[in-house]
């Protein structure tokens, strides 16, 4: 028996949250900045983390997340309550990330500084991984594995990276991802499967390379 229903878990909770959200959306659509502030508060961190997972650099993630949320503000009149606000916001985020990624890629190609982009840059992830409490040996192995996967994700194509981020890192369901990307669930499933296979291949290649370096 549940004495303290968690908002979002019970039907009552969902209704309550959505009523409030609907009010915020209507007010924000008319240009009420305070209503917009209240509306996006619960999503800001998610959006920032998604951008960080797509771009891996904190400065890029900052810019991307700012652009996503500003775009959400500008395009809010286009939100017609056909999906949840969260799904719509994720759609804005996904489209913005892909656009920015392409722009960044073109810029990189112009500057021919591929070495610079492949270079290891310190980001908050190292701090976070290190802070988890395991035995020192376990922590080391875990940290190495997590960072290895993190680097491998960076080598994925943007489309594959996007579905891995949405499904495996943001933890969204297949149905919701299908709504966000506006395609069928079957398409999402096969794209995610291909993305994971691709990730696995990159991981194995990286491991072989590392092993080759250690044992001459």
């Amino acid at each position, binding site marked *: 028996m549940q004495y303290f229903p968690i908002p979002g878990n019970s039907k009552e909770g969902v209704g309550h949250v959505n009523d409030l959200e609907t009010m915020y959306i209507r007010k924000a659509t008319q240009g009420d900045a305070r209503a917009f*502030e209240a509306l996006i508060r619960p999503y800001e961190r998610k959006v*920032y983390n998604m951008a960080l997972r797509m771009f891996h650099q904190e400065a890029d993630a900052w810019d991307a997340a700012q652009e996503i949320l500003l775009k959400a503000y*500008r395009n809010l009149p286009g939100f017609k309550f056909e999906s949840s606000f969260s799904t719509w916001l994720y759609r804005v985020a996904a489209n913005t990330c892909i656009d920015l990624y392409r722009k960044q890629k073109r810029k990189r190609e112009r500057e021919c500084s591929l070495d610079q982009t492949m270079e290891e840059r310190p980001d908050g*992830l190292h701090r976070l991984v290190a802070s988890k409490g395991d035995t020192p040996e376990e922590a080391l192995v875990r940290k190495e*594995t*997590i960072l290895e996967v993190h680097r491998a994700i960076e080598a994925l194509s943007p489309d594959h990276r996007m579905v891995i981020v949405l499904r*495996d890192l943001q933890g969204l369901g297949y149905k919701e991802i299908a709504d966000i990307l506006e395609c069928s669930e079957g398409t999402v499933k096969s794209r995610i499967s291909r993305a994971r296979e691709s990730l696995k291949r990159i991981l194995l290649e990286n491991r072989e390379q590392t092993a080759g370096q250690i044992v001459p």
Partner: protein
Amino acid sequence: MKCKEIEDLLFLYGEGECTKEETALVDHHLATCDNCREILALDKELLSTLQSLGSLEQELPEGFHNTLMEKVHALQSPIPKVSWFRRIHPGIYGAAAAMLLLVALLGSFLQPGPSPATGTSESAFQEGAALDAVDSSMAVMESAETPEGAVPEVAMKAEDAAGGARDVAPAAPSKDRNAVLVVVLLSTAWILLADFFLERRQGSR
């Protein structure tokens, strides 16, 4: 061949997203295939690492929210608070211009023969009052671009003309009509002047 088909399902199987039929198929295959069981173990490990990575959510950087809200406020274009007068402002200019033109035309029709515009006597000045008033109103309109000092002068000149016209009004019917025109003209000039100063005051703020 069979292994390849199963391999494609292993990630979904590992996260419990397979359909009943698919699950049964994989279960049946795994019971006899060591290779696919190994792959499943690897896939599950990858999924679990991804999950760990996903659980490492970073805090929103300091200043992120405030920066965003500043941009949101900057995007808002507040509707400027303007007086009723300023809102109908373009209309006023149009109406005033039309009125001036009409009065100028009427003035020239109602006064046959050359008006003694060059005369220095008071009566001469009064007779030409309508035309002079037209001129001074034009000057008012032009004065919108001239420095502040020029404006009161013009206003006083216009007032003199009005005074003159009113004094003469009872003398003759044609002069009476002239006086009415001058009054209309002067009201227009005053509206323009008032608008001009109002605009300056709001503009300087």
